[in-house]
């Protein structure tokens, strides 16, 4: 009777992930991968849990696996490597390298196929969308291409998708719910919907 996530899913208000990530971004030292680490880790817990630590790669790996067990959707292999490289370099047992630009921001788009620094990618990343959606393959949620295909020719598509992003929902693609999004402005939601539907 405990086997499913349904208890949690039915009560969880999961909307505000990206907002927290943004709000907690400052404390991490800038370096290659900092954006990805902030998004993946800072979504659920404040990053003081990172900044107060000095751990070996093995220990960070252990922590990473523990977070997966606590419910973090497992990042891709590339993302995992970027995250562990960053944590070990800047919060490891050795003196950290100097702060540096996040040169891996684009690469960190990783599984989603979205460049978080460019165009609508900035909105998708800030809105937390790319945590579950990729351009052309299913992750936690359906790909943007699949969404576009489903709503092809649907005159009400814009209204339906806007409402879905804003208020969340479940059942169209399976039981996993999509959380409501309170981070994005109406204008940003509209830009996302236009971009998705333009993929047809």
């Amino acid at each position, binding site marked *: 009777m405990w086997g499913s996530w349904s208890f949690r899913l039915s009560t969880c*208000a999961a909307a505000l992930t990206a907002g927290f990530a943004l709000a907690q971004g400052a*404390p991490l030292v800038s370096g290659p991968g900092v954006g990805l680490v902030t998004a993946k880790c800072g979504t659920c817990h404040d990053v*003081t849990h990172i900044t107060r630590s000095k751990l070996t790669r093995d220990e960070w790996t252990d922590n990473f696996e523990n977070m997966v067990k606590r419910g973090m959707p497992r990042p891709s292999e590339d993302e995992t490597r970027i995250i562990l490289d960053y944590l070990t370099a800047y919060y490891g047992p050795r003196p950290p390298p100097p702060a540096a630009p996040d040169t891996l921001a684009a690469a960190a788009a990783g599984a989603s196929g979205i460049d978080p620094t460019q165009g609508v990618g900035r909105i998708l990343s800030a809105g937390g969308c790319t*945590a579950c959606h990729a351009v052309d393959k299913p992750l936690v949620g359906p790909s943007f291409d699949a969404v576009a295909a489903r709503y092809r020719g649907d005159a009400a598509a814009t209204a339906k998708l806007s409402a879905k992003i804003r208020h969340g929902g*479940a059942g169209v693609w399976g039981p996993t*719910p999509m959380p409501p999004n309170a981070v994005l402005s109406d204008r940003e939601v509209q830009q996302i919907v236009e971009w998705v539907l333009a993929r047809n």
Partner: protein
Amino acid sequence: MSSDRPPLPDAARRRFLEGLGAGGALALLGNAPLTREALAQAAPAKPEPVVPGTIANAAVLAEKDMTVFQVHSERPLTGSVPAEAHDFDVTPSNRMFVRNNLLTPDIDAGQHRLRVVGLVDKELSFGVEELKRAFPNVSTQAMMECAGAGRTAFTPTPRGTPWSPTGGMGCPKWTGVRLRDVLAAAGVKSGARHVAGQGGDPGTVATAAPVIRSIPLSKAEEEHTLIAWAMNDAPLPKVHGFPLRLVVPGWVGSASTKWLHTLSVLDGPFKGTYMDDSYRIPKWPVAPGDKMPPDAIVTEAWPIKSMITHPAPNQKVPAGRRLTVRGKAWVGEGSVARVEISTDEGVSWQRARLGPRGDKYAWRSFAFDFEPERFGYTTFLARAWDDQGNAQPMVSPWNPLGYFWNGVHRVGVLVVPA
């Protein structure tokens, strides 16, 4: 295709969006304890973002005495008061420690149900008021202590909430019904071994693992194990589990499920991350820095422990005037037999006076009179013994997750001319 989540009210959404601008000012303080002064300096100009259906940290902390309450992390919210702020017989609610695993839910007590399911003859469901009427109401003062309390005293410091050696515990008065009465009403089937509590705290992401912990049936049926709705004669504060929580006295805090909505009677320990990955210690001590061995066991009762609540560390004490050292001692199961004080770094020990024996799982006060005979820095060490002959060690066995620190508490003062 429907959502069971209502859209965010405009006001809530606006608050959240404004909160983003605050830039997590609290987090910028890093590891420093957040006192009222620090909070005032770092106070975000705008409200913090709040997940719908949850309580803002600011609302939780408004009920705490921020002159002494130290916040260790915002998400999840954790915090407690230092030893010298524990100089009370009963821990006041505004000084009770906070250790959330996820967010603080905002539950409507009128709608809340407690279900009893699993290996029972008859599954039951109660509203809060129904539960109060259905069984005898009992009160008891009892220890609650996070398994990781004292973690920062270990070397190397394990990961996790950086509790001070005496952080992360308190001993308030609880009121509720006995868990065993509720289990008896449901009828526990033969073969039942464990009882699991599940709380209604949500995570930031929908995939967050639910917080579920089970305890052996023997502890569940102990008469002081409660389903509580009150702390210190007032309804539970929201952060402490409103409207219902388990109180599993003397055991690690994670056993005392907050926001309790489901009790499940099982044929063995619940399998889940809060049983199998967290809240475990090696069966046999490991070398400091080692990994968790496969034969780890679930943490249960706290070993014997004590703390000095007066004087405060580094207080100036006038020479030639009697100083009464005060403190608390407790043990997860059993009773406190004696407390000893050393004023020479453990070379010799003298007995402290024990206060009256209170409720079975309450801490016990102790006092020790001291006449400073020389100027300068003077230390007090407190060491408690339980009725089984166990005493506090100088250094507790290191373990990978930093649980069960119960090393002797040491407080130094400065003796100055009167």
